[in-house]
């Protein structure tokens, strides 16, 4: 697992290019998304520093998932700019953005249901592989090596996220909900991202399992030097891992800061946390 070596935050040219938020891995600057008449995300600026876990919280329909979809290129922002490591990626295709090092999971699990766990994770490495049409057919040694390497790595990843070896070759659809979440994370990780976006990863997990995931996220940050952007409604998880929290409501940023600050913010309590938070 040597993804860490590939990221070189200190490279001078990168630093030079970085705009707006100094040193941020990814920054969204004043992005908005309008559906018909509905402003789902309104002028939101968020910066994600390197090797940090940042969370976005907010009531239902606040625009969190929409914001994710803009970061990953599934939606094109109606306004604003998204900058990844100094390069403007606004409106780029999702696959390009993924190739640039941003990987995600989905609020409703979206595994490739008729593929095994291992194959799912292998797909995650698509952007890091090179075999083309002809190469795939003729399969020269280079491609064979690549293929074996990919499979190895997929198994490593699945082990890393804690899937039992015996379920590696099960079809995704037959896995339990929790395991499906794990495979999704492994699939995202396999692409060697610099930034991992997790959309409600603990939904449908019980508190005990959520706790395990919390620890796991910290491990990712520390061992793989990843940044993580997390959407989550489970406050225990959010408060437990985040170094920075942004709160959205009705598409607008209503608060941000470290967990303690956010938690104490009356607007956040009123709009989102409720009395027991």
């Amino acid at each position, binding site marked *: 697992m040597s993804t860490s070596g590939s990221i070189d935050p200190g490279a001078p040219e990168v630093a030079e290019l970085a705009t707006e938020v100094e040193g941020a891995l990814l920054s969204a600057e004043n992005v908005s998304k309008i559906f018909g008449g509905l402003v789902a995300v309104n002028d939101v600026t968020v910066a994600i520093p390197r090797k940090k876990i940042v969370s976005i919280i907010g009531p239902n329909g606040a625009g969190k998932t929409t914001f994710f979809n803009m970061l990953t290129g*599934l939606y094109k922002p109606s306004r604003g700019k998204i900058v990844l490591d100094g390069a403007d990626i606004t409106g780029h*295709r999702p*696959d390009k953005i993924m190739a640039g090092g941003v990987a995600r999971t989905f609020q409703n699990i*979206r595994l*490739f249901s008729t*593929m095994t766990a291992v194959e799912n994770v292998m797909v995650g490495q698509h952007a890091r592989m090179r075999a083309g049409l002809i190469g*795939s057919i003729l399969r020269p040694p280079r491609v064979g090596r*690549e293929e074996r390497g990919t499979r190895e790595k997929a198994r490593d990843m699945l082990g890393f996220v804690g899937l039992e070896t015996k379920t590696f070759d099960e*079809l995704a659809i037959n896995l339990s909900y929790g395991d499906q979440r794990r495979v999704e994370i492994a699939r995202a990780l396999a692409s060697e991202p610099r930034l991992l976006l997790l959309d409600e990863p603990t939904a449908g997990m019980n508190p005990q399992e959520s706790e395990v995931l919390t620890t796991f996220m910290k491990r990712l940050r520390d061992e793989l030097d990843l940044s993580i952007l997390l959407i989550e409604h489970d406050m225990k998880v959010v408060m437990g891992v985040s170094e920075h929290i942004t709160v959205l409501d009705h598409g607008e940023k209503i608060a941000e800061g470290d967990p303690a600050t956010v938690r104490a913010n009356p607007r956040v309590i009123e709009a989102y946390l409720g009395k027991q938070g």
Partner: protein
Amino acid sequence: MSAINSNLESFRNWKHANLAIAVVLIGALAIFPLFKPPLDGFIDDCVLALAYVVMALGLNIVVGFAGLLDLGFVAFYAFGSYAAGWFASDFFSSINGEKGIHIGAGTFASTLPGIHLNFLLVLVAAVIITSIAGMIIGLPTLRLRGDYIAIVTLAFGEIIGRFAVNGQIGGFKYTNGRQAISPVDALDLPLLKEFDSAFSIRGYYWVALTMVAFSLFVNFRLRDSRLGRAWIAIREDEVAAVSMGIPLVKTKLMAYAAGAAFGGLSGAFLGTYFNSVNANQFQFAFSIFILSMVILGGLGSIWGTVLGAITLSFINSYFIPDVFNGIPGSLGLDFDLTQLSFGIFGFLLVMVMILRPEGLLPEKRRRLELKEGIGADEAIVEVRA
């Protein structure tokens, strides 16, 4: 019984099972015509079946692997056949001052006007033309979802069929319409003597068999590759696929191109084998025929597709005309069943599908799948491909 089953299961899971099946099967198939008369009608049916296997394997890449429902596969059959018609007949008879262009053509063909390329060159031409056509046809479908793809491919199939029938725009004549470009040069390969289908069709059979072996090889290689996985990912969930770094446009176009290439390959062969390229052949029903092979065999399953193609082809060219229609005769009745063959064909389609809804040999993935009827879910709006 269960012992057999488990043995079978472990064989299926054996790494080289496919290779083993393929080698044994193709070996056996290769020598079988020697035991039949050289013009035997059954070998004839086999040649057709093999050619359809190649087509079906091509369509399987598009529909089975990548999940792009293609109802216009006939377009590639047409392009492939016309490659043979254009480059291996006297169709362009006025070219080169009526002297013709001959590259590696057979002895008889070398004396004719028109363009006469060697069969292998014709195949290359067919593959190039159809791959490009495949991509062009694929282009407008890229933003479409689900069955909208089906109708656009269907539309192209019809448009191309129509162009084939009309054959001429202004003064430029590019097909012979329903009057057929004929004859097409006999198949001849370097170092071998010409395959004359009036005396023996074994040569055609072996060439078709080689093409099947080649198609199988490519299909298996593609399926178990980076590209194959990408196709299946797209089939399952486009949004997730693109979010995993799979470029939709490029990957889909490659599926279209690869699938089309086989259609072209087989089309060029059939044009040569039939000795004629007639616009009558290029109808929607043909697309349906090939699609039925793929689905009936087991969508996405390579061996299933092979079996499906052989089954339908034999129903069409052997069972109905040679067996079924002969029944009244053998019972001493003077009743003509040919007028029912259409319906019988339909009836068999219905029966087989109802008896084996998953297909004759379902794809391994689908066999493992417990839950049914899953697939890519609701539409995505904005993925700009």
